[in-house]
């Protein structure tokens, strides 16, 4: 079965870009990395069997590239005005400042823990799928989730300022 690359890009661009953006908190770096990952997929498109396989491949590739990038750059989270999303109709009823704080606290987690949290709460993957994507034991995934949640809960309750 031949996979239509144009369709793969259209269907997965948000997934790939969002993971990179939430992980790196740098819009231009996220876009660059996302483009790289799509081009890498393009060069290997003949090995991709189905659109689901493409999604799985992209998710795995962007996760590993982001972790590598963070380790390489010893990235310190940066918050720019451009990173704060325009409040949507839905978010008018919720608290955009709270969500920005949550994203900032997530960005302060260690690279592996950060990616585990992103895959769990952005991509809605279960621990087994996360373990498979990140090549780590399920127990490690669960431990990252448990510790990260405890840490975030503590910081949110203490109203700790993130920055």
């Amino acid at each position, binding site marked *: 079965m031949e996979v239509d690359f144009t369709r793969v*890009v259209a269907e997965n661009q948000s997934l790939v870009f*969002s993971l990179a953006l939430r992980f790196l908190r740098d819009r231009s770096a996220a876009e660059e990395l*996302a483009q790289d990952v799509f*081009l890498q997929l393009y060069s290997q498109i003949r090995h991709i069997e189905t659109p689901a396989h493409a999604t799985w491949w992209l998710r795995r590739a962007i996760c590993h590239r982001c972790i590598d990038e963070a380790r390489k750059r010893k990235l310190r989270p940066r918050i720019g005005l451009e990173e704060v999303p325009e409040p949507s109709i839905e978010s008018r009823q*919720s608290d955009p400042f709270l969500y920005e704080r949550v994203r900032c606290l997530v960005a302060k987690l260690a690279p592996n823990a950060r990616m585990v949290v992103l895959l769990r709460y952005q991509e809605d993957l279960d621990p087994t799928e996360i373990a498979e994507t990140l090549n780590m034991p399920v127990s490690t995934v669960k431990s990252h989730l448990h510790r990260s949640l405890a840490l975030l809960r503590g910081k949110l309750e203490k109203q700790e300022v993130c920055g």
Partner: protein
Amino acid sequence: MNPEHELREALRREPAPEGFAARVLAQTRIPPIRVTPWWRRPATLALAAALLLTLMIPSEISNYRRREQQHGLEAKKQLMNALAITRVQLQQAQARVRRNTRHAL
């Protein structure tokens, strides 16, 4: 406070920047720069051909000379044989003529 709910809301997927897909697709249309390896470049091939000819011509000339020399020697041998045979035949004919002349006298 339920951090799981806050996390789900805060980490919602964000749409890719406008024109992102178009930019990716545009990059896939750029033909990759093909670097011809040095051993397949025309100049290298021409040089290799010239070198091969330079090596082949003297050895071919020497082979040709050796063959011609051998042909010459064979021809010489055949000619010597033919001359020897002719000489013997002439001597025999001369002897026969002498004998007949003597009888006739």
